[in-house]
């Protein structure tokens, strides 16, 4: 019963350079499977850079290079022969600003499955209903699936983005980059509820500017500062008796 959960992602002495600047300065961290890891820290601490490194979205920005290793289920995702496309199907992402693609709600959800070659209408229909239900959006949109995703509210769009990730059969890890920063409290609560339910199936990493959100949702919390991982531990410990003085100052609101 007290066996430690298996490690989903192991990050080893990982550095990211953007041009000459070192955005991430040697992070070593194990992310256990089927838990929610919260990442907190002031602006510019490398949280987003860290998150985007985990599905190699940083590859898209010019003059970014990395050192160190990120192992997903023991495999180095930065190995030259590693298949980035399959990595991104396994490691889904939600962005700070909800981005519905300019197509129907239905097409938004099946974007990933279609790429994986699923064509059968019945199967796609089933995926749409299941994913939207898991994202707590089904009841609101089930009668207008052909409507453009752009016409949904911000909170609905963010849940649509979540459904889009959940629609991918291959998804195992969900990265969330301040997913609620622009949302109202009710939408935020819906996303948080969804995450709490989803962790039985997925490993979730949640970057948040809102320390209270980390306290509510995360099982473990990591505190980043100026590109360094200051400390990581069970959320309760980080918020009550952290090892590092700086963590204590941040979570009690003395800076940041």
């Amino acid at each position, binding site marked *: 019963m007290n066996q430690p959960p298996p490690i989903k992602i192991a990050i080893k002495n990982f550095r990211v350079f953007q041009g000459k600047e070192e955005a991430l300065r040697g992070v070593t961290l194990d992310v256990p499977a089927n838990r929610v890891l919260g990442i907190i820290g002031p602006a510019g601490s490398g949280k987003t850079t860290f998150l985007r490194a985990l*599905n190699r*979205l940083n590859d*898209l920005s*010019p003059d970014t290079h990395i050192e160190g290793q990120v192992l997903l289920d023991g495999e180095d995702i930065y190995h030259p022969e590693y298949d980035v*496309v*399959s990595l*991104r*199907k396994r490691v*889904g*992402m939600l*962005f700070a*600003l909800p*981005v519905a*693609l*300019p*197509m*129907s709600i239905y097409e938004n959800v099946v*974007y*990933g499955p279609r*790429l*994986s070659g699923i064509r059968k209408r019945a199967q796609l229909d089933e995926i749409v209903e299941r994913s939207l239900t898991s994202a707590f959006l089904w009841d609101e949109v089930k009668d207008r699936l*052909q*409507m*453009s995703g*752009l*016409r949904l509210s911000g909170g609905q769009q963010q849940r649509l*983005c979540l459904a*889009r*990730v959940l629609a*991918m059969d*291959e998804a195992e890890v969900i990265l969330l980059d301040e997913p609620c920063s622009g949302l109202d409290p009710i939408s935020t609560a819906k996303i948080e509820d969804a995450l709490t339910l989803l962790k039985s199936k997925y490993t979730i990493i949640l970057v948040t500017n809102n320390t209270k959100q980390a306290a509510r949702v995360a099982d473990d919390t990591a505190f980043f500062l100026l590109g360094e991982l200051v400390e990581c531990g069970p959320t309760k410990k980080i918020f009550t008796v952290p090892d590092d003085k700086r963590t204590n100052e941040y979570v009690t609101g003395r800076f940041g």
Partner: protein
Amino acid sequence: MRISPKVAQILAVAVLGAATLLTLVVLVFVIVFVLVKGLPGVTWQFLSTAPLDMGKSGGIFPTLVGTVLLPLLAIAIALPLGVGTSVYLTEYTRENRFTQALRFGTDCLAGIPSIIFGLFGFIFFVVMLRMGWCLLSGALTLAIMVLPTIIRTSEEAIRAVPNAYREVSFSLGATRWETVLRVVLPNALPGIVTGVILGIGRSIGETAAVIFTAGSSLRMPTTVFDSVRTMSVHFYILAREGISNENAYATAAVLIISVLLINLVAYTMMHRFIAKRAK
């Protein structure tokens, strides 16, 4: 003396309004002039029969066909090349010396007078490749001529597609090509269509480059290796050689109406497409 903001505002409105009015008046005058002089000669007979006696009498049917086929073929050649180039420049390369040189080259190409393209087409396609004056020589020449316009407008349209869309697509496991096909091109389509309309407009009105490459045969083309005469060329020859002023104006009227119709159809199609996506 400083002009008070109020007076400046009134002046600005007056000057800008006058400029707009002048532009409109010139435009309307040209169109009305040509239509008044030409429309009486436009009959079903005129549209549907072949010219007689070098165009002194009879209709313009073969030139109508030539005017449709030549730009159509030119766009069919230029569109894949142009869109392909702009996708490559925007999605597959980072800004560097090479892309800058390419862009500079296309901009220069856009500014070259059409008669130079005509001369090039004549020397290269008609003479060197022994294709003769024909539909294909003309279409290839026009394609080169409209290529810069299509590349530039497509490139701008593609750049205007929000980067967030691309990131989302990548994050859902799409390759670059899948992202181009499913997200970038559909969203850039209205801009690309604008480029195509401009290209069609330019090739329909083109005379110099066409005379040199497609020739001016009045016979009905049956293959792409037949010479054709477009309405612009027909109009030019009728007027230049003093063959028939009435028929020249009638041809011009048909030409103007065709251009208006093409623009109308293209814009309607585009708006319908945009409306469908934003539903």
